């Protein structure tokens, strides 16, 4: 059983999805789905222990083992191989953890926001999406990656459209996401095809060794492939300027869906970028062909400022948080563009930190939407007094976005600024910190309205959100505070992953 863990983590949610479609009864469906999610989380934690914490390694110096699994017993590179290293397992735990916490929150939230008849379909699509995302993280085969990418994408288009009960804009947002996402995925497919053409293999490790042996011969093809892949992944990742789908999709999807996607989907696309650039096409070749570091840095800096500024003017809080996500993805891309151990550590640790913070923030918004029925900033007047626990969670999440010490966001900012200063790029460091100030403006706008203004006369009285929704919210926000003070796990594993990606032996 233990040797099948890698594939079980994918198969269990995958099988559970059609099961949910068959069991139509709402309570049973949610029960099954939530159990499956937590079981998957348990499996990924077991994998984490095997990959990172075995062989006498401790919390301070995690190890860097690799767990492999051959699908159907066919050996690599002819068969499809699953390869779990420290980066994959780090992200596996994040995605399955957030998936489990958010789905535990879902029964009440979806009762408010999704048509009752569609709840079992919601669970099915949710499980499919999670299976797809986990599959991307686990697989060691490029085409398998594309297949899982499309599984997760298609189910996320369906999930977003479930928000149509609240607003018909969910449908157009889902459609726009579909068109842009498919173009992105097709670009990735083209890139994979071109790489396959010159190396003759789809296995990532095998392709990597073949490219490093005779990469120079195929320079032009690899260049074109890298170009297509970068554009495709940037689209999925919502890197400026290919982020147009994100604000609409996050704003009008149901709160559960937004929380899950915001915390996982874009992060997994970052993972794809990391794999492609650092594992498959080694950085020496990739950076030589395409000035990825400078290009990525420029785009991410512009993205941070444009997105943060756009967030300041939003009236819909979920839309504001969506623009905030685009800015935060900019921070992650900035860390990657620094292409040093510190830079990559900063980027990878921010994957975890931002997932917790944004997930928590969107769950808090879901609590507010549950009681108020709206997420417009004007309707949030005085909500700090009427829903203190929820709003305090939101405040802590907002402080995490700004990067106040003792939150996880501070840790990411610290490493990012440190990595920039290491390379003597102090203008970049300064710009990172100024980005925090823009975050301060849009976060504090909401805080002031929530705590300082009194509710409109005609507003109905609302009470605090139900406990079943508060607990998952506080789990994520509490985790962001915990990882703001105890970073041995997050930074330790992130550093290991960064070293492994850059091929630094330590």
């Amino acid at each position, binding site marked *: 059983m233990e040797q099948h863990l890698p594939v079980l983590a994918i198969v269990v949610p995958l099988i559970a999805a059609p099961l949910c479609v068959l069991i139509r009864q709402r309570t049973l469906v949610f029960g099954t789905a939530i159990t499956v999610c937590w079981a998957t989380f348990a499996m990924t934690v077991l994998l984490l222990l095997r990959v990172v914490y075995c062989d006498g390694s401790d919390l*301070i110096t995690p190890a860097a083992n690799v767990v492999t699994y051959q699908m159907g017993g066919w050996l690599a590179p002819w068969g499809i191989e699953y390869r779990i290293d420290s980066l994959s397992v780090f992200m596996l735990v994040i995605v399955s953890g957030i998936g489990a916490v958010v789905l535990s929150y879902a029964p009440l939230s979806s009762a408010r926001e999704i048509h009752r008849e569609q709840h079992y379909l919601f669970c099915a699509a949710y499980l499919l999406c999670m299976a797809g995302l986990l599959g991307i993280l686990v697989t060691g085969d490029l085409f398998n990656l594309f297949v899982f990418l499309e599984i997760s994408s298609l189910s996320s288009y369906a999930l977003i459209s479930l928000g149509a009960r609240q607003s018909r804009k969910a449908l157009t947002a889902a459609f726009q996401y579909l068109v842009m996402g498919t173009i992105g995925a097709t670009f990735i497919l083209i890139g994979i095809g071109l790489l396959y053409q010159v190396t003759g293999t789809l296995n990532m490790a095998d392709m990597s060794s073949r490219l490093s042996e005779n990469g120079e011969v195929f320079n032009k093809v690899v260049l074109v492939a890298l170009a297509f892949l970068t554009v495709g992944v940037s689209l999925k990742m919502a890197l400026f300027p290919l982020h147009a789908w994100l604000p609409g999709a996050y704003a009008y999807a149901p709160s559960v869906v937004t929380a899950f996607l915001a915390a996982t989907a874009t992060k997994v696309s970052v993972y794809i970028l990391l794999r492609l650039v650092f594992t498959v096409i080694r950085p020496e070749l990739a950076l030589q062909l395409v000035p990825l570091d400078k290009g990525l840095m420029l785009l991410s800096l512009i993205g941070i400022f444009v997105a943060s500024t756009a967030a300041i003017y939003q009236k819909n809080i979920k839309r504001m948080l969506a623009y905030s996500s685009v800015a935060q993805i900019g921070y992650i891309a900035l860390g990657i563009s620094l292409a040093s151990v510190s830079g990559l550590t900063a980027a990878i640790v921010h994957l975890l930190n931002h997932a917790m913070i944004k997930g928590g923030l969107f769950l808090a918004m879901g609590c507010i939407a549950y009681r108020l029925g709206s997420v417009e900033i004007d309707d949030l007047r005085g909500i700090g007094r009427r829903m203190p626990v929820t709003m305090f969670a939101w405040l802590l999440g907002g*402080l995490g976005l*700004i*990067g*106040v*010490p*003792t939150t996880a966001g501070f*840790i990411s*900012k*610290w*490493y990012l*600024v*440190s990595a920039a*200063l*290491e390379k003597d790029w*102090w203008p970049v*460091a*300064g710009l990172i*910190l*100024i980005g*925090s*100030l823009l975050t*301060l403006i849009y976060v*504090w706008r909401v805080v*002031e309205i929530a705590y*300082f203004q009194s509710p409109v006369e005609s507003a109905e009285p609302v009470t605090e959100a139900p406990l079943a929704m508060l607990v998952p919210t506080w789990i994520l926000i509490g985790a962001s505070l915990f990882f703001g*003070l*105890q*970073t*041995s796990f997050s*930074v330790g594993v992130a550093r290991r992953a960064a070293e492994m990606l850059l091929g630094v032996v330590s």
Partner: protein
Amino acid sequence: MTDEITIKLALALPLMAAVTAGLFARRPNVRELFTLIAAGALLVVVTSLAPGVFSGDRPGVTLFSVMPGLSIAFELEPLGMLFALIAAGLWLVTTCYSIGYMRAHNEDHQARFYACFGVAIFAAIGAAMSQNMFTLFIFYEVLTLSTYPLVTHHGTEAARKGGRVYLGILLFTSIAFLLFAVVWTWNLAGTLDFKPGGILQGKASDGVLLVLLGLYAFGTGKAALMPFHRWLPAAMVAPTPVSALLHAVAVVKVGVFTVMKVVLYIFGTDLLASKGLSVPLMYLAAATILIASLVALTKDNLKARLAYSTVSQLSYIVLGAALANASGIIGGSMHIAMHAFGKITLFFCAGAIYVTTHKTEVSQLRGIGRTMPITTFAFLLGTLSVIGLPPFGGFWSKWYLALGAAEAGHGLFVAVLMISSLLNIAYLMPIVARGFFLPPAEGPERPAINEAPLFCLLALCITAIGGVVLFFLADKMVQVLIPIAQN
């Protein structure tokens, strides 16, 4: 009880006070009693550590490591010990005052007030005892955030606007400048520990060090160095106990304390003095001293006048730090104590006057000495301490500052100090004079005495007399500070 436990207890006590204030929100007497007990206990705990530290011990404890190489750790040295003593002592006095003020004024949200106060003191004590810049930065930010609800206590539109300026300037400077400086120092020196003699010797070029010092100076917005001083007058929308303790003692003193620590233990006085890096800072501090005093002259609102006076007095301490010689350091450090007692007395009196007569403007205070003689007399004592006349503590700190300026060859700054003293007289003495010697604008010429609430009176008398007591304790203070100043 070992020193480790004592330090942890010192940190835990204000937090416990905050928690109990929250728990017993509906039972005012219980929560106030708990806060008083906690404050008293904190004073006892901190005082117990003092003799050891002043005779050369450096007790410390490391709590845990946040990032590799960066941990939350505490270590006591004379300067921090001094600050901790002031903070603990004045917390007790201010709690006493707050009880009188908040109840007389029938303020809302008193539980939130005492709870946030507890957290703010926790942050101040934590900052006082920090062993490295990382810990200090964390507590610095916690202080900013925990004082925001205190500044915006009244919840009015004016409070919100004041809070915005307060938070905006403090967070802006701390994120854009101070955090930058801290991470840069970390990159250059590989450590953030406070070490006598500094950690930046030979780590960077002079230009880099100059920029770094500038970032630290402007980044420490709480030190109210111009042009980042506007938060101080803006924070005057807060209830007077808040203005008194936090903006005369805790918040601003954490700011100048940070500057002092940076000068002493990050850069090292030798490095600064030998390369003359801190000369621009001296001029900046001198400019702030003068400009703030001039602005104070124009302010009619009593609290605003006192706020600008504080801006000016803080730059005395920054000047002392920038002079980077033994006398300057001693003068600046002593002024942390002297100014704390002097200013808190003035604020207590301003609050007492407001709560009794609802008067806020200086022009309204004619004849106040006849209705509130004790308060006005205490105000006089506080004024004399701030101006720097014997037998008040403020005299000695100004003396050492002038000595430091002269020793460093900057006669200009001696002149600045003198002019500033004159300006102090100009904007503070008239208040007392008009209070005692002019009859009230309306009502009988010899009105009945209508003093402030008892708890308020008690508090302001203690601090006023404290200013005198410090005059005689100054010698001890110098002895205690010499070891660190002469490194």
